[in-house]
């Protein structure tokens, strides 16, 4: 059984009197342990796809099966549970809380599953080690470099041992060298922890790092192919 299966998923936004079709009849299967890139120009619908995969939005039409369960009709609490336990997000602009230190930022998802503060800190420190960022735990995000911030964000994404990491342009704000390090971190996590990684990008070089590339244009999947892993 696929970890994720989208069946005839459409997303339509009502903007005033106009209907904007962001996703049109998407069918997509992602197996556990895959490393997949979704590429497309801006406005192609890849972000919307990502939000639906991440349970931040519900599809207008179609079904979304996560581990065999249709999450389309989930209420707020169950969607929150999915985001908390099964999905990890990484954003282009890191989205860390500036007033909290690194450890607290990483531990944030654990707050919402009732884990005590000692255990939270232990798990957060471990996630930071997995993200190759140690000795920065007490710093605030503002004191870190872009690459370090993205590692904090990745640590936050994996702290609750999710099934899947959804990364939205994770290298968009980083220079090439640091971007490469971040992608190899994803690859390492994918390999060692068998966590599924979905990478949304418009950078073909980054996309080429994935074993499978899904190309999206005007809300439709126009290509879905295996990839011979290249180098950055």
């Amino acid at each position: 059984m696929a970890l994720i299966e989208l069946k005839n998923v459409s997303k339509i936004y009502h903007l005033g009197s106009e209907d904007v079709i962001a996703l049109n009849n998407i069918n997509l299967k992602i197996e556990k342990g895959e490393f997949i890139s979704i590429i497309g120009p801006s406005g192609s619908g890849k972000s919307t796809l990502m939000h639906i995969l991440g349970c931040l939005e519900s599809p207008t039409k179609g079904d979304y099966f996560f581990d065999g369960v249709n999450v389309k009709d989930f209420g707020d609490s169950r969607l929150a549970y999915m985001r908390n336990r099964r999905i990890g997000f990484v954003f282009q602009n890191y989205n860390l809380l500036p007033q909290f230190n690194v450890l607290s930022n990483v531990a944030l998802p654990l707050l919402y599953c009732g884990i005590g503060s000692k255990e939270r800190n232990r798990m957060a420190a471990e996630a930071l080690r997995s993200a190759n960022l140690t000795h920065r735990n007490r710093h605030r995000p503002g004191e870190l470099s872009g690459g370090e911030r993205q590692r904090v964000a990745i640590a936050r994404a994996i702290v609750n041992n999710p099934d899947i990491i959804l990364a939205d342009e994770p290298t968009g704000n980083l220079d090439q060298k640091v971007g490469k390090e971040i992608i190899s971190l994803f690859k390492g996590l994918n390999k060692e922890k068998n966590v599924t990684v979905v990478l949304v990008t418009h950078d073909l070089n980054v996309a080429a790092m994935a074993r499978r590339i899904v190309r999206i244009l005007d809300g439709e999947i126009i290509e879905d192919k295996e990839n011979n892993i290249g180098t950055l």
Partner: protein
Amino acid sequence: MELYEFFKTAIQSALLNKWRTFLTTLGIVIGVYSVVILVSLGEGAKLYFADLFSGMGSNLLIVLPGKKDTKGGAPHPMINTVRKLSLSDMEFLKKRGRTFETVNGLIMGGGNTKYSNRQRDLMIIGTNETFSYIHNMPVESGSFISAEDVLSKKKVAVIGHTVLKELFHNENPLGKQMTVAGGRFTVIGIMQSKGQSLGIDMDDIVYIPLTVAMDIFNQEGLTRITVKANSASNIDASIEEVTDLMKKAHSGNEDFTIISQKDMLSTFEKIAATMQLVVLGIASISLLVGGIGIMNIMLVTVKEKTREIGIRIAVGARRIDILIQFLIESITISLLGGIIGLLLGLLTIVIFNSLVPDFQVRLTPWIFMLSFGFSVFVGVVFGVFPARRAANMNPIDALRYE
């Protein structure tokens, strides 16, 4: 998320903008402060009056000459009436009364007193032997006027502490001769100090036998007759009996007024109740203003934290978690204001009480509950709208918010 974590987050957030938080709490500080002060003043006043009445003696009915329809306040003691209260009225009540234990007659006047080369104008009370017992005013030394003194019109006097100090310069007055309203009197007792009551110095009085006073003032009528009922539960029966007996003595006419302490107390209680309504009004207005201030700042905070809300939702916060987070933040701010207001109020009361020892402002335990409850209430009521706004945010828009 555990409650404690919510509070931690709320306090962190409040500390992030210390000045803003402080200024926001001011409305609540002032509201709770005024409630604490006014309620404590009211409680102090209640206590003051309760003390006053118990100092007068308990279960008393006062019979005054003339019919007054209004209850509560005492009519002017010097008022002229058609039918006066006489000694025989008093004797009649004493002889026939069943629901009361004792009766006292009293006549009040003013006069000049002299001792040695000192003189003083003061209040002279002519009364009989029951006065001391009925009004709970024992003598400190010597003895009070006796029944025998009244009967034989003996010229004896009992003096208060102020008289002792001003006229006798604290030398032992017992057995000494003093002049009261032109007559020579032997001092036989000193009253225990009573202090001020409603602005009258209760120690600046000379007591002489009732019959002697009636002669001196050339009065046939008593200023009042006081009846002490058997028990508090019997007051109404006593009122009825005194009314009956007095009517009989006055050939069927109800040309007298009976005031019970209950009537007087109820007057003061009415005043206290009105005061409490005023307090409630002031409190409501200031807490409303304070609450609007909190709502205003919370709306700003929610706006500022748009991105944070998006992040929290993305990592697994439920909408209810977001709602509670902001609700607790507004409660925290409000509660902080409540605590500051309460502490300032307590400080003011302590200072006031040390400066004005005669009138103690009283702290009741429920004032703590009241301030606490008020602040939480305001925090919840005015926090709901901003918190709902936060909880209903679209997480995608929130994450994109710059």
